[in-house]
């Protein structure tokens, strides 16, 4: 069936074309809408246009209607008067007695008297000796008697509008003769190519002998029509001009107001973008000038405040850095002394030996805390740099797991590894990523309550990701962002069992963002938590998404299975959270 298939093909293409058109239209409409929504000036001009068009249309219609009515009515009035005069004349002439007629019209030559109908028609149409041309034509129609119908000019019985004739004949049958009718229609007269707008007035002249003469007057109203169409054109042109003028005025006025506002907006935008020395020009003393003055004052104050804050922050950071550095020297000495004490602890009584052990342990913690503080102050100072190498992320993961194995054994926690078969190469700083992973693993072991920790590695074209899942107590709502805060603690009452400094996740996050990657957390009470690290394969490229989902697959499946969304499960982190919907 080639034709149908062809037809189907064509139909499909037509539908496609239509779809394309619709899409394009929608897009254009969207663009227009956005332009309209963004431009105050356009809104003012548009509303002025709409309002003025409405007003002009209403006024124009009213005006032209009024003029129409007065012109047409006066014309109808005068026409009806003329028609009535003619009908009276006809009735008079036709109802004269024949002998009167003979007396009044018999002329010197002794000819037979002319038909009174001819006489009166001569008078009416002006076809007599000194008659002048009338501006209308007359048709006298007597269909019941032969030779009693007359017409002037080129009117014929066919020119009479059917409805008018029927109305007259209806009245004739009812013996009502004093009701003339009018009818306006374009009539094409014999020998003319164009119809002429004509007002036809029809009336019946009834004679005592029972004869009825239908008298039709044809008044051409092309003059009136031309005049009215001129008036209408004039009104339309004036209205259009008025609308355009109003729109132009609105445009100018709006411009006067909007352009300083626009300048202020642009200045505010630049200010927001950090250009704190942005100022507005102040002209005059009006409201807009006062707005500019206030804006400038605000900008000055803002800049001052920001500067103060920056200085304060700088001082604080410097203080932390200095403190850390200053603490190191005495700490080294303390450490050396403590090492000595620790090594010789077997010679001490048990109490002293225990103190030496405790001191050793706390000194280690203090040391690592100091190292973390130094590291973080380096980030704050912007001094951190990356040492990039193409590395298989699986190796990094395995090394970090190896480092964590001792701790895991202590917590009797087992690792479950889900690694891809092919290498997941990425340009990363080996040391920092290993530190991130170590931190995540330690965290998982610490909060995993001895349950399995699942480590998953995923990769796609642009990114690699590592997810670390524990099945511990999980995170409360809102905690998924707070976990990355410095010295944040899930349960302040809980002791730190492993030597966490409270800075690990903060540093990890800084490391991840130094790579241009993301570090995000998901957690749910009783379900455990999952941390996901996503890194670009090539350093410096922007991430578009992650190969792994932030929510663990089993939770996701359960959620789908239940068919309802748990609001808690919504993605958490600010950066990149929007891309994790898939």
């Amino acid at each position: 069936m080639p034709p149908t298939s062809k037809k189907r093909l064509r139909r499909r293409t037509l539908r496609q074309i239509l779809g394309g058109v619709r899409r394009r239209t929608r897009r254009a409409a969207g663009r227009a809408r956005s332009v309209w929504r963004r431009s105050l000036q356009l809104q003012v001009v548009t509303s002025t246009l709409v309002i003025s068009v409405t007003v002009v249309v209403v006024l124009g219609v009213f005006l032209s209607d009024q003029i129409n009515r007065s012109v047409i009515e006066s014309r109808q009035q005068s026409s009806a008067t003329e028609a009535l005069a003619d009908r009276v004349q006809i009735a008079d002439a036709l109802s004269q007695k024949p002998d009167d007629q003979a007396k009044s019209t018999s002329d010197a030559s002794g000819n037979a008297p002319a038909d009174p109908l001819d006489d009166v028609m001569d008078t009416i149409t002006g076809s007599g000796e000194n008659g002048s041309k009338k501006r209308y034509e007359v048709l006298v129609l007597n269909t019941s008697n032969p030779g009693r119908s007359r017409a002037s000019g080129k009117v014929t019985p066919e020119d009479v509008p059917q409805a008018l004739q029927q109305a007259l004949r209806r009245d004739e049958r009812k013996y009502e003769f004093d009701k003339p009718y009018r009818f306006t229609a374009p009539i094409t007269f014999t020998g003319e190519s164009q119809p002429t707008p004509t007002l036809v007035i029809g009336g019946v002249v009834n004679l005592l002998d029972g004869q009825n003469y239908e008298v039709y007057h044809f008044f051409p109203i092309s003059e009136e029509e031309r005049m009215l169409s001129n008036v209408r054109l004039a009104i339309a042109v004036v209205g259009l001009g008025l609308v355009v003028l109003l729109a132009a005025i609105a445009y100018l006025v709006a411009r006067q107001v909007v352009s300083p506002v626009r300048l202020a907006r642009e200045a505010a935008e630049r200010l927001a973008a950090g250009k704190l020395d942005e100022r507005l020009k102040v002209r005059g003393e009006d409201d807009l000038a006062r707005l500019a003055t206030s804006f400038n004052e605000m900008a000055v104050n803002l800049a001052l405040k920001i500067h103060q804050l920056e200085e304060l922050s700088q001082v604080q950071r410097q203080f932390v850095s200095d403190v850390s550095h200053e603490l190191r020297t005495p700490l080294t000495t303390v450490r050396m002394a403590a090492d000595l004490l620790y090594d010789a602890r077997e010679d001490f009584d048990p109490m002293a030996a225990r103190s030496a052990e405790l001191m050793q342990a706390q000194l280690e913690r203090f040391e690592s805390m100091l190292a973390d503080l130094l590291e973080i102050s380096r980030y704050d100072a912007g001094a951190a740099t990356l040492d990039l190498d193409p590395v298989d992320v699986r190796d990094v993961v395995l090394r970090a797991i190896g480092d964590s194995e001792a701790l895991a054994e202590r917590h009797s926690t087992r690792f479950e590894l889900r690694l891809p078969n092919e290498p997941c190469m990425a340009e990363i700083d080996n040391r920092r990523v290993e530190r991130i992973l170590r931190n995540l693993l330690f965290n998982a072991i610490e909060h995993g309550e001895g349950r399995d920790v699942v480590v998953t590695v995923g990769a796609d074209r642009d990114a690699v990701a590592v997810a670390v899942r524990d099945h511990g107590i999980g995170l409360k709502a809102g905690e998924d962002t707070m976990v990355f805060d410095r010295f944040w603690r899930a349960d302040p009452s809980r002791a730190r069992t492993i030597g966490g400094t409270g800075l690990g996740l903060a540093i990890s996050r800084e490391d991840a963002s130094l790579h241009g990657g993301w570090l995000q957390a998901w957690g749910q009470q009783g379900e455990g938590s999952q941390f996901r690290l996503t890194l670009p394969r090539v350093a410096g490229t922007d991430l578009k998404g992650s190969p792994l989902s932030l929510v663990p697959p089993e939770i996701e499946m359960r959620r789908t299975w239940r068919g309802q969304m748990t609001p808690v499960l919504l993605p958490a982190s600010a950066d990149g959270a929007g891309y994790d919907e898939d």
Partner: protein
Amino acid sequence: MIRRRIRRLGAVVAVLAALVWSSACAVIPVGGPFPVGEAGGGDPMSKPFQRMVAIPPQAGWSPEQVVTGLQAAMAAYADDPEILAQYLTPEARQAWKPGGPVTVLDNLVKYDVEGKIGDKEITVALSGTQVARIENDDTYVPTSVGVDRKFTLVKDQQGDYRVKSLVGGLLLTEADVTRAYRPTNLYYLNGTPGSGGANSDMLVVDRVRLRLKPTESFAKTIIERLLKGPSKALQGAVENVFPHGTRVESVRAGDDRVIINLSGPIDSGDIFTRGLQAQLRWSLTSNNVANGRYIEVQLDGEPFYSSDTLTIPPNISDPWLGTSSNAAYYTSKGAVYAMATEGPGRPVAGPAGQANNLYSGFAVAVGGFSVGQGADLIAAKSTAGGIWVTRAAADGRWQQWIQGANADLTPPSWHRDGTLWTYDRRNGAVLRCNPGAGRGPERIAAPSLDGFDVTRLRIARDGVRVAVTIGKHEIRVGAITGSGAAVMLGNFQTLSTVDDEEIRDLAWRDGEHLVVLSQSPAGAVVKEINVGDGTVTKLPSDTRLRTLAAQGERILAGTKKKNEILESNLDKQNWTSKMATDADTPLFPLG
């Protein structure tokens, strides 16, 4: 301070209110004078008219009504030919032809039904008087004949009567003709046909009846008819400047002019333009069409000349209708006198101004006009026989130009080309001589006058038309046709036959009207007859009248007592005494 401001505001409001009020009052601005453009002033090309509207036969009409309706349909036939057919049976529809002369009946037509109403076949007899017929060339020929036509009607399938047989041609009443036809004057040039009109100097009127067409302006109808050439009465006698085959494409009104668009074999470089202008101008103006307007003539929609338009001004000053010379003469005791405005005239110079009892039947040709000899020529019949001519100058003397017995020759009549015409009743011949050129009498063929008792022969002032009286009761009008050796008198038609009156005198008023004096048992009758269509206008009569002379608006008469000249006063419808001396016979040059 505030009060002052309020006062100022009040003043402004008052001024504004005054302005608004005054502008609202003067809706139509007053003032002037301003020059205005010349507006149309109505349709200059048509005249209002009414026409018969034919209606189809209605069910249940009596036979008489059917025939009346048929007659009305004939009156409307030219406008609406379809209605007429509905009155006829199919066979009659096939057989009937509308062509041929139109029979014009008077308004008192009677219909007599022969047979019983309800019969299958019935005859309606129409009886009346035919007052005229309108020929195919649009001439209106008055007649007076009784007409009796029979219409056979049969019932058709619906039981209504339809006309089964009728004679061909249209049958109109006088009222129908008055309604639908207009007497129209067409003007042609007086030159020889085919000459191109180069030596023409006068217009000759041709009168026809033209039917008004609702879809066409009357101006176009007139020009269409003008282009077709003169009617039978002037055939071969006048010149039409438009070559055969010229058509009028359109006639339309411009702003201040009427534009005539012609097409056909017109050679705009060679045509006699003045004649064309005169023919168009007078043919339209004399029929009250395009009065006072410029006429622009176009050829195939382009200006008439390749470089220039041809416009005809509203007033042509050329004496195309003849000079209206005021010269008038009268005779007294055999002498010719020039008439003065007041009081007695003075005798003309030369022998004609001397009293005698030898000459009679004078005719005057104004000198310097066509004759070219500076002095008037006076011709007269002599009691001694023959026709004599003398110059009205001191050195003039009577010379005999045509011989013949006094009783045999009709009074001489001057032609405007200087020839002198008379009819020799003994030989039955029209004679012509040319005293100015010194050419003696020659016979002019006039076959239609052969065998008739021609009692008078008068040549009209246009030099084309000729009026003769046959016996005492008949006037015929013909025309001088042909040129050179082929000149003859022809196209004679009976203009008027008066059985109960005796024609006493006749005179041409102008190229169109003939004034006739006749004597009826009741007294003298003066009437003016239009030679074109025989229309008779009665003029005031007076029992004293014996002879007539007419020129333009002036009609003079001599009395039976030969002591007075009367002038007709058309306003007061009577004759007033012009001269009460021994005036005998009034004379006008030519005519």
